[in-house]
């Protein structure tokens, strides 16, 4: 048997190692994505002042700080038994749309597009943003940089700081919006709607216009038949900031639905000895190992999980794109891992449209920013991070110091799926011991779609991620090691 290990995984946060084990015939026997980092963040938080948590937790990693800030702030709302004012909710949500705009833009153009625009078989030295710009032109590059910066600017205006906001406080928000700032955000949101539409058109022309890519998206190695999870509003539309957690089954029907505070009754964590990251599963189904299908409690989160777990988007243009995606790919749910990229762009359009709606809301410049808090207790806060459902759960003592912390992050929710996607892609693509860089990139594409973040899933703080792939033969001898 041969083993292929991919470590570090390029364009991915955290640290991981992919080991691929081959059998005597040179075909894939099994594949593992190991997360070798030790968690430590939850312990670090114990004993700290509750109000520091929204400032501390965004430092878990540099990628979704705004999501951690918001989940943390919402956990404090719950722990202090207070609902934020209507204006505070809208301001928080508007800031959150800024984050989604920049995060989704960055992922698509910098991380996802190299595989599709430049091509999965292109040499690694060209499969990057510079290769993308060579194909689509420098002007598109400027639009990408501009709108990523708009998303950051929206977050900064409302949050005080672009990457690590400081505005969230239990019961509200520390700063309001004046008319000048509101107008600036409205202009940026307007431009972002057009940019999102352009991005969907680009996806349409470059990816959907290429039969080879469509076949790749729909090919067997990239299909995973799991449950899907995401937050929805009362109309079962995708909602990043608030709502019920909805789980749909393999037929697209509602299977489970719960409030943030009830998450422990619905989701559990499974531990394996070969990795520091845990696996989550649905309690109603149970842990059956790394298999998909209705008898396995594994579910997907993130852009595709969210769209699958909902019945539409809350804004008109994004809803149209939502329906077009499902019509094109054969109805809901879509189980193709590579469709995450398309779903991400549909969400980008929603985030931009919703930012525009919120920035023109008559209440948005009100000064009613905070409600008084109650006594400290226990609370759960949930948001949809760019990469999927994010849970923060705190227990506070009588003096408002943190006694206990539990975090379930997006990548932990997706970890089982990521492992299966890697295994299936490896099985489908590595035959007869034939291992090329191009094949390994196709394996990487299987998990890059999730945009996983292992810094968060192990709650450690590495800041960047090296990657190794190792291939072992049937006698466990290392036959190939690729390091990036």
């Amino acid at each position: 048997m041969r083993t292929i290990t991919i470590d570090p995984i390029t364009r991915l946060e955290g640290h991981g190692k992919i080991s691929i084990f081959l059998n005597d015939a040179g075909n894939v026997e099994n594949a593992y994505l190991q997360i070798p980092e030790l968690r430590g963040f939850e312990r670090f938080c114990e004993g700290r002042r509750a109000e520091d948590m929204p400032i501390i937790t965004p430092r878990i990693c540099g990628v979704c700080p705004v999501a951690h800030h918001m989940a943390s702030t919402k956990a404090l709302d719950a722990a202090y038994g207070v609902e934020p004012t209507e204006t505070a909710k809208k301001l928080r949500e508007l800031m959150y749309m800024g984050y989604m705009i920049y995060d989704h833009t960055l992922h698509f153009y910098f991380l996802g597009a190299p595989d599709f625009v430049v091509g999965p078989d292109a040499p690694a030295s060209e499969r990057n943003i510079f290769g993308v710009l060579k194909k689509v032109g420098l002007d598109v590059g400027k639009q990408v940089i501009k709108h990523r910066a708009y998303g950051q600017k929206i977050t900064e205006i409302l949050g005080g700081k672009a990457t690590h906001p400081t505005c969230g406080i239990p019961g509200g928000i520390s700063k309001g919006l004046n008319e000048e700032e509101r107008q600036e955000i409205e202009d940026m949101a307007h431009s972002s709607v057009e940019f999102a539409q352009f991005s969907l058109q680009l996806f349409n022309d470059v990816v959907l216009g290429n039969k080879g890519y469509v076949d790749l998206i729909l090919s067997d190695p990239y299909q995973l038949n799991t449950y899907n999870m995401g937050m929805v509003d009362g109309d079962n539309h995708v909602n990043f900031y608030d709502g019920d957690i909805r789980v749909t089954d393999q037929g697209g029907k509602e299977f489970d639905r719960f409030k943030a505070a009830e998450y422990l009754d619905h989701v559990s964590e499974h531990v394996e000895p070969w990795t520091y990251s845990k696996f989550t599963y649905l309690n109603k189904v149970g842990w059956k190992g790394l298999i998909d299908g209705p008898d396995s409690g594994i579910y997907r989160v993130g852009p595709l999980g969210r769209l699958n777990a909902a019945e539409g988007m809350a804004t008109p243009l994004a809803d149209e794109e939502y329906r077009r995606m499902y019509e094109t790919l054969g109805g809901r749910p879509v189980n193709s891992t590579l469709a995450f990229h398309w779903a991400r762009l549909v969400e980008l359009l929603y985030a931009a449209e919703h930012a525009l709606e919120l920035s023109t809301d008559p209440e948005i410049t009100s000064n009613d920013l905070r409600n008084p808090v109650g006594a400290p207790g226990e609370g759960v806060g949930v948001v949809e991070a760019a990469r999927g459902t994010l849970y923060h759960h705190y227990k506070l003592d009588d003096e408002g110091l943190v006694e206990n912390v539990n975090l379930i992050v997006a990548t932990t929710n997706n970890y089982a799926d990521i492992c299966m996607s890697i295994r299936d892609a490896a099985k489908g693509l590595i035959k007869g011991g034939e291992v090329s860089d191009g094949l390994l990139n196709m394996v990487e594409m299987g998990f890059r779609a999730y945009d996983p973040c292992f810094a968060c899933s192990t709650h450690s703080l590495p800041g960047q991620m090296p990657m190794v792939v190792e291939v072992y033969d049937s006698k466990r001898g290392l036959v190939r090691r690729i390091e990036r």
Partner: protein
Amino acid sequence: MSVAVIGIGNLLRADDGVGAHVVRRLNEGWPEIYAVDLSTAEIGVLDHVRGRGVAIIIDAIVTGARPGSIHRLELGDVADEAFTRSHGLSLASSLQLGYRLYPGEMPEKIVVLAVEAGNIESFSTDLTPEVEAAVPEIINEVLREVEAVGPPSDELKKSGLEVQSAF
């Protein structure tokens, strides 16, 4: 011509936060200097260096030298293996992209002040005494660069790129 000071690093990991510590002290003592704590070294750096004559980037480094020693590097010295940075581009690749997209707007000079860290493993918001002792010298380096370059032009002030950093 003007200077942008960019601090990089995680404030919660002891000496890794040296960039943020220096930026905070610059904001307090020299509010006229444009200094931001960017925390993560990524594409966002372009939002702050475009339109500047000089960019000074302050980050921690581990080379085995005496903790607190200051390595003065040029961009070429930190051009790491491009594109391998996780969720985005590395600092060097981000700046390269900036020169590709905005050739007329990028700094003529980029200085990297890499401070040898003693401890980047612990969860702590404090610097170790050795690195703490180096902070005045780092600030002096920044002030020397600012003096050599002169104040920002009126054009830059009008462009709206002068945003107050919030720490």
